[in-house]
């Protein structure tokens, strides 16, 4: 056997991407959700570079380079947002960031008490 099959690289990329998606959906800590996004982007980068090898063009590596630049810009702005959220709210769980959540005022007057307790704004 003279080398690694290319499909193994793509399978590893799929595994990393799936782990990123799972981490993003199942975690409530904002910073961990952000790190799952970075994991997804890394999986995609591996896929780009594997296909650059297969098609014998270097364009795939350039795409990965641009993905990296965008990830850097997004990480900077996203972490600034997280810092602002924490500064105003003192919570890191994403469930409790609800001040812009829209839930309309219930028609049934008996449910208005629990509606106002949920922190919704009409």
């Amino acid at each position, binding site marked *: 056997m003279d*080398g690694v099959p290319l499909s193994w690289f793509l*399978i*590893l990329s799929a595994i*990393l991407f799936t782990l990123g998606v799972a981490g993003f959906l199942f975690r409530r800590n904002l910073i961990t959700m952000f790190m799952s996004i970075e*994991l997804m982007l890394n999986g995609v980068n591996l896929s780009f570079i594997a296909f650059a090898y297969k098609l014998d063009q270097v364009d795939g590596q350039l795409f990965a*380079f641009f993905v990296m630049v965008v990830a850097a*810009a997004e990480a900077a702005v996203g972490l600034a947002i997280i*810092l602002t959220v924490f500064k105003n709210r003192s919570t890191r769980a994403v469930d409790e960031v609800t001040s812009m959540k829209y839930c309309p005022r219930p028609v049934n007057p008996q449910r208005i008490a629990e509606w106002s307790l949920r922190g919704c704004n009409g």
Partner: protein
Amino acid sequence: METGLFLLFASIAVVCGVNVVVQRHPINSAISLIGVMGSLAALYLLLGAEFMAATQIVVYAGAIMVLFLFVIMLLNAGEEPKGGRSWPARVLGIPLLIIFLGVMSFLIQRMVPETDQVVFGAFLKGDPKSIGTLLFSKYLLPFEVTSVLILVAILGAVVLARKEID
């Protein structure tokens, strides 16, 4: 030799990736993510992308992850409280994930022919000269647009992080 190297770095990447998702304290996730990026850089070297491997270490593991660590230390982020998932998600989550990955692996194996092998040293266009030639000729517009993107990101971060002047 390539098979052994690939298996070593791929297993490190997968174990660290699972650790990112599973750990409760964000600092452990951050260190595991640095491990993922390091092993991915080694895999890029195997694929002949030496410039991308160096950029991955310098930019991703050296700048972005350090930014994450600074923010984690600044926020004094503690452990996440346990629980909060519904009962079906708790039971079906991991098996469904494994089934999905199995189906994806099978499909990928069928799509890519077995004769596509990755040999170390077979891809010679990954040096900075080829990337620079392409970056400044064919992809010049995206390159200039990313400079605007970085400017916007800097402005956004500065505006979000400044003190309110009363």
